[in-house]
């Protein structure tokens, strides 16, 4: 307790402590006396260096300011570019979107390739539906099959396209399930008219 009070009052603990303090003070006085003649400090002479020191810090400050300005400008440029680029293109930057687009393009290419074939098949189908001769009905129906196959394949492609579409929440009308209708029609033709087994 006494020790704590001594510390808090900043008092010497004993005579040797007091002696130490006095010696420190005496030595400090002696040092001060010795100091009095030694230094001939002239602020004017130091001021010669002042421009260097200050110019250095000034140029450093200027450099850091320039860096900040460049960084700000660059950020603005990036933001402007991002604003200008359409959202659909920006979307490609997301992981997986590029692959999705590749798949879509592939399907579109397939559609392009099949387009002529389908058109030809559909024309044939329409032509063959004009029944001129009942005797050749079975043969003519056989000729219709590529048209149906083409229709079914195009609906398959449509479904595939919808599955990989960028429009994720697209609503497909129930009545437009053409693949089902065409398949059903084809099965009826095969089973009832051609008496063939249904193939999906």
């Amino acid at each position, binding site marked *: 307790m006494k020790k704590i009070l001594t510390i*808090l009052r900043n008092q010497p603990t004993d005579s040797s402590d007091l002696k*130490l303090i006095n010696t420190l003070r005496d030595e400090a006085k002696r040092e001060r006396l010795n100091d009095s003649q030694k230094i001939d400090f002239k602020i004017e002479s130091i001021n010669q260096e002042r421009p260097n020191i200050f110019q250095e810090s000034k140029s450093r400050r200027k450099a850091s300011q320039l860096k900040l300005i460049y960084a700000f400008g660059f950020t603005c440029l990036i933001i402007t570019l991002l604003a200008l680029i359409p959202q659909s293109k920006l979307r490609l930057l997301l992981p997986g979107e590029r692959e999705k687009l590749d798949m879509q393009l592939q399907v579109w290419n397939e559609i392009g390739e099949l387009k002529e074939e389908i058109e030809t098949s559909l024309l044939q189908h329409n032509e063959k539906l004009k029944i001129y001769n009942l005797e050749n009905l079975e043969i003519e129906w056989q000729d219709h099959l590529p048209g149906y196959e083409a229709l079914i394949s195009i609906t398959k492609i449509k479904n595939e396209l919808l599955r990989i579409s960028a429009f994720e929440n697209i609503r497909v009308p129930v009545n437009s399930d053409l693949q089902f209708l065409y398949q059903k029609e084809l099965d009826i033709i095969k089973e009832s008219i051609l008496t063939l087994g249904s193939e999906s």
Partner: protein
Amino acid sequence: MSQLSKKSDEDLANLSQKGDSDAFNLLANRYWHRIHRFLLPMFDHATAADVTQQTLLRAYHKIHLFNNKHTFAPWLFTIARRVAINVGKKESKRKETSLNDETLSDVAEENGNNLIQPLWKLALEILHEKSYQAMRLHYAEDLSIREIAKIMGKTETGIKVILFRSRQKLGATAKIRGISS
């Protein structure tokens, strides 16, 4: 100049604020070694001298901010400590592992007499940087505990404890080494 030398630090600071560079030169001469010794636990002699110079230069440029109602020494030592921290201990060599006689005698030769007295030399050698600085400010600069606490960024009680422990350590080591205290 002789008239100026009779003036107090605060008066000289006041004159410096009015543009009297002689007044500031006198102040700088009064404090150069005191700041230098204050900085010695943080830097070697040469760097301490540079930092002292920087401190005085900073004080010169900021003299208009000095409040005449307060004493000058704590203001200047606060600047010294801040400049020293800014300069950074990394760039400067840590205080010489032991401030040997050779180094001191070199400096003494250069300056014509001893810069540091034996007990202070021992304090510089064995005490931690902050302990030495607190001792220096209190027993050599006669600054109050409150002023030292403000300069060092510590509580008054903290400074009192530092002083007590430093005295204990210094006294014990001085006794072992036979340095009269």
